[in-house]
């Protein structure tokens, strides 16, 4: 095959042209900016959620009618309700200790909505314990009421201890709990359920990434082939290069443009994550643990390998189909069979994430059309032998070589067919007739 002899430098020159043209196009720039902005925004979402939930304050007025109630009572409640919040942090519960023991002005303020609840503290003369009354429209089984109930429990204990004459300082000291990891790897494990959920979410996310890349960037390749054919620049190209050089150049050029876009979006994600802590500090005044739970190296490696190979395989087929139409408008309909196959693989693998050991999943994970997604699902589930991954890669590589040969033949004949309907017969005839 003389066409194989000299892939370079022409494939490289074509790839560079395709890359420059694609990256300079308005659609690419706009798409990248929008995607990066969305990615950045998504990374900030936790802050927003915390901020919104954090700004909801529950204001409680406290009216103490029991004159011998603990003097530190308000502080005890405050500590119990807002315990997690550091100094200067945002308080979810705002407690106001009323100076008057007259209930009527407090009632008025409660009805006006100045307070969300009015807590009246009395002394039950029968038992001698503190008696609490909470007047509020908050649901009695709601989170706030539950929190207040447990805080009052602390206060009641405090009161009892004080009456028994025990020093309260030691009792009120915060409990000191040390968490000791079980595994030797050093990090404390979250619960199995949480981990498997985050792992399968991540896997689904990676599958979506591959799916989007193949659909979007494959369509770019098909469009650019059709554009070349539509503008009739194709004949000049055919004289200057071989179909394989053209194919390789196009696939590499658009693939690189796609990777650039992903790279920029990824950079936005990383920048977002990096900005998350300072932003959180500035907005919420608190920090939180940043975790990319479940992100394992084998999964990432599989993702990269199958991302690249899957794109190569499908974009060659896209190029072949793109060469069969004369106008860009027809590209979508000509490539629709391929789109269906890609969607099928996507849905199958999303289903496979939940049941990776089923026979059909194992079988499909070796089929080159589906292995880019299915293998990812299986690898992240972990029930897989290394040779299985190797076999899938070898099969996919073989499919790429076949696709390249087939695509080059269809392409070199297809680009000279103008104004014809595309059918299986045309494709086969084109493949047979060409050089």
């Amino acid at each position, binding site marked *: 095959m*003389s066409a194989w002899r000299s892939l370079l*430098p*022409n494939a490289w*020159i*074509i790839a560079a*042209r395709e890359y420059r*043209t694609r990256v300079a196009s308005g659609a690419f720039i706009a798409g990248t900016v929008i995607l990066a902005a969305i990615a950045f925004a998504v990374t900030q979402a936790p802050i927003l959620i915390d901020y919104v939930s954090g700004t909801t304050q529950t204001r409680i007025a406290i009216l103490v009618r029991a004159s011998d109630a603990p003097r530190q009572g308000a502080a005890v409640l405050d500590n119990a309700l807002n315990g997690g919040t550091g100094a200067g942090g945002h308080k979810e519960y705002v407690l106001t200790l009323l100076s008057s023991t007259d209930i009527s002005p407090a009632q008025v303020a409660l009805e006006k909505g100045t307070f969300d609840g009015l807590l009246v503290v009395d002394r039950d003369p029968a038992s001698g314990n503190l008696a609490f009354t909470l007047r509020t429209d908050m649901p009695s089984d709601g989170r706030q009421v539950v929190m207040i109930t447990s805080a009052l429990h602390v206060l009641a204990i405090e009161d009892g201890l004080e009456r028994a004459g025990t020093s309260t300082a030691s009792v009120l000291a915060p409990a000191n709990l040390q968490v000791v990891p079980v595994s030797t790897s050093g990090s404390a494990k979250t619960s199995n359920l949480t981990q498997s959920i985050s792992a399968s979410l991540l896997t689904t996310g990676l599958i979506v990434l591959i799916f989007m890349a193949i659909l979007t960037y494959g369509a770019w390749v098909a469009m650019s082939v059709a554009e*070349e054919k539509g*503008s*009739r*620049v*194709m*004949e*000049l*190209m*055919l*004289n*200057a*290069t*071989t179909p394989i050089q053209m194919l390789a150049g196009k696939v590499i050029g658009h693939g690189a443009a796609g990777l650039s876009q992903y790279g920029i979006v990824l950079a936005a994600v990383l920048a977002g994550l990096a900005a998350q802590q300072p932003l959180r500090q500035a907005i919420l005044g608190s920090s939180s643990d940043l975790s990319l739970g479940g992100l394992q190296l084998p999964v990432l490696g599989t993702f990269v390998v199958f991302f690249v190979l899957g794109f190569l395989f499908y974009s060659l087929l896209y190029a072949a189909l793109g060469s069969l139409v004369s106008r860009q408008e027809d590209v979508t309909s000509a490539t629709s069979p391929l789109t269906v196959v890609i969607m099928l693989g996507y849905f199958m693998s999303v289903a496979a994430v939940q049941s990776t050991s089923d026979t059909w999943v194992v079988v499909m994970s070796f089929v080159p059309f589906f292995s880019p997604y299915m293998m990812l699902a299986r690898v992240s589930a972990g029930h897989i032998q290394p040779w299985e991954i190797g076999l899938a890669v070898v099969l996919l590589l073989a499919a790429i070589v076949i696709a390249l040969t087939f695509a080059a033949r269809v392409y*070199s004949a297809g680009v*000279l*067919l*103008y*104004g*014809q*309907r595309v059918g299986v017969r*045309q494709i086969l*005839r084109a493949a047979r*007739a*060409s*050089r």
Partner: protein
Amino acid sequence: MSLIIESVSKRFGDVQALDAISLEIAPGQIFGFLGANGAGKTTAMRIVLDILRPDSGSVTWNGSPNTRVSRETWGYLPEERGLYARMKVLDQLVFFSRLHGVEAGRARREALAWLDRFRIPEYADRRAEQLSKGNQQKIQFIAAILHDPQVLLMDEPFTGLDPVNVALLKEALTEMRDEGKTIVFSTHQMEMVEELCQSIAILDRGRLVESGSVRDVRRASGRQVVRLAVAGDPQIGWLDGMDGLRITRRGQDFVEAEVGRDHDPDMVLRAALARDCRVLRFEITDPSLEEIFIERVGGFDTSERTLAPRSESA
């Protein structure tokens, strides 16, 4: 050193696009490819360039098959004009030149020199879509020759150019011919062929009906043409009755007639003198290429046979 096409045949579906065509095109000359629309000219060029493969037959350049000849050998100006619409003219020329193995810096210098020569240096930084059709055609011509090909094939290079640009292109072609390049072009414009070409081939529905040097082709018809003008009688009515003579044109200045194979053209002059006419002009010449073309191709077949835009042929 010549381009040899040997009994090349190509069929598309039920259309015989080329039927055992054999041609030898010597280097250092301009070769004209004539034929009605759909005669097979474009197919023949594509086969020579190895863009299409023939069903049978072979093409060799300097003795080696065209499938092994390096692509830098060929320059091609396709009939369907096309450039990358949104790419700058200069970038475009450099791109095509680099694909043919020319180093970028040299490609750039030569592209600028050619733009200058074709009087469009100011278009170097414009995008192709901003140029007029004629100017795009000049850009394409430059793209075809920038890598200094040994063989230049052009499909209808003159259509759509104004007279000034036709002259510029002719000058460039004769210059390349003098450098020893082999130049082949197809056209319908016979005066262009008579002016530029040393040899021609006439194709008709895939068959080669005539080939050779322009002079030989004109002579080989075996017919001769006389042109006669006499004072005071522009129509020269008496010619109508002459045996072995067929009037082909009654112009403003002269009457043109074809002399039968077994007659002597001198008989026209003798007859005129015998009638005491004052002869203003008498000329014996070979039939024009146009006449031969019409005769050989059997009049213009108006049915389009061009393969490219048709839907039922493949």
